């Protein structure tokens, strides 16, 4: 079965996720405008934590006219790409994040028809469905209840939701040996994989 956001042959993400795969540093990295934002907040170790990511994203203006990301969302974003489980991101992971978030932002903008910076439940459901997530009505209800204020979901919360769904999907997909959409979970593995997000 095809999972949303799964890399196509060739290794690039489909469906508006944007993003080049992470890889070794490339020539010209120092001239990359993103590197400027990253270096400005990162410490000597070339890694940024959630606080630093928040500052970095705010300064890069990725949120545009929307409210910048809260700390919890930044923490989530790190967990999504934090392959070495360090709780921090290196520059290549940051670049990947930036591209993915941009893809999600374009998607959000296309559903935010009145430009209010929010979407309602129906628009959210459509947005998530068109990204390929097949969610049950209970799941959509839970998501809406968690992320909406007076029936509206803001950009930051939408991103948090996308991050969670993508991370959960990855967690499941990696264990789906036959790629049929089923996994035989052992209890310990289930708990640890889900609570790592």
């Amino acid at each position, binding site marked *: *079965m095809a*999972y949303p956001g799964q890399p196509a042959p060739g290794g690039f993400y489909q469906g508006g996720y944007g993003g080049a795969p992470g890889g070794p540093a490339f020539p010209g990295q120092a001239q990359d405008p993103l590197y400027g934002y990253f270096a400005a907040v990162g410490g000597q170790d070339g890694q940024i*934590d959630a606080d630093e990511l928040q500052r970095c994203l705010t300064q890069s203006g990725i949120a545009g006219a929307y409210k910048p990301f*809260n700390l*919890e969302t930044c*923490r989530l974003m790190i*967990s999504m790409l934090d392959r070495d*489980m*360090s*709780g*921090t991101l290196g520059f290549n992971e940051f670049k990947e994040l930036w591209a993915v978030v941009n893809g999600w932002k374009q998607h959000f903008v296309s559903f935010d028809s009145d430009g209010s910076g929010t979407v309602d439940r129906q628009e959210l459901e459509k947005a998530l469905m068109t990204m390929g*997530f*097949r*969610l*049950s009505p*209970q*799941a959509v209800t*839970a*998501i809406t*209840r*968690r*992320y909406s*204020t007076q029936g509206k979901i803001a950009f930051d919360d939408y991103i948090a939701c996308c991050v*969670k*769904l993508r991370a*959960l*999907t990855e967690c*499941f997909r990696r264990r*789906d040996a036959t790629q049929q*959409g*089923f*996994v*035989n*979970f*052992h*209890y*310990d593995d*289930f*708990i*640890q994989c*889900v*609570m*790592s*997000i």
Partner: protein
Amino acid sequence: PPPGGPYGSPYGCPQPGPYGGAAPGGNAPPGVDPEAFSWFQAVDEDHSGFISVKELKQALVNNNWSTFNDETCLLMINMFDKTRSGRIDVYGFSALLRFIQQWRGLFQQHDRDQSGSISFSELQQAFSQMGYNLSPQFSQLLLARYSQRCPQPSIQLDRFIHICMQLQSLTDAFREKDTALLGNARLSYEDFLTMVVTRML
């Protein structure tokens, strides 16, 4: 399999109380004690008769005086909000305070060196005592995610509550699917998403 099955002692701590059950002593009558009531009034800044997540955040503090994080406050509100309005009334608040008190007690119990926060080894021991059989890597990951970047990462009360409640909730969800109690469950992608999304948000 060990006694109690592959989960160790059945699905976490078998005692009632700190995991969302009744207050100690069982069936406390629905009422509001004077202290909870005056606290409620102080926290309900706009005198709406309801406390929102934002107002609740001001009321709950960790041992290091940091306010409870948003996620835990949200979890608390959802637990004690009978009206599904995203706010709690004085009865909900009173029950919430009792609930937090029990958690403080449990937290102190597991904070063996009385440092005010829970370290890696204390967390491992807490999980083990609650009946969970989780790897050290898992505890490391939780610490990496939920503590500041400092030499001695540790967990404050708010995150401790949040982690334990999620463990309980996800275990319940898994058990519903594992009808034979084998410690395994075959989940479809959609089931998996629904289970997790409805329990973790």
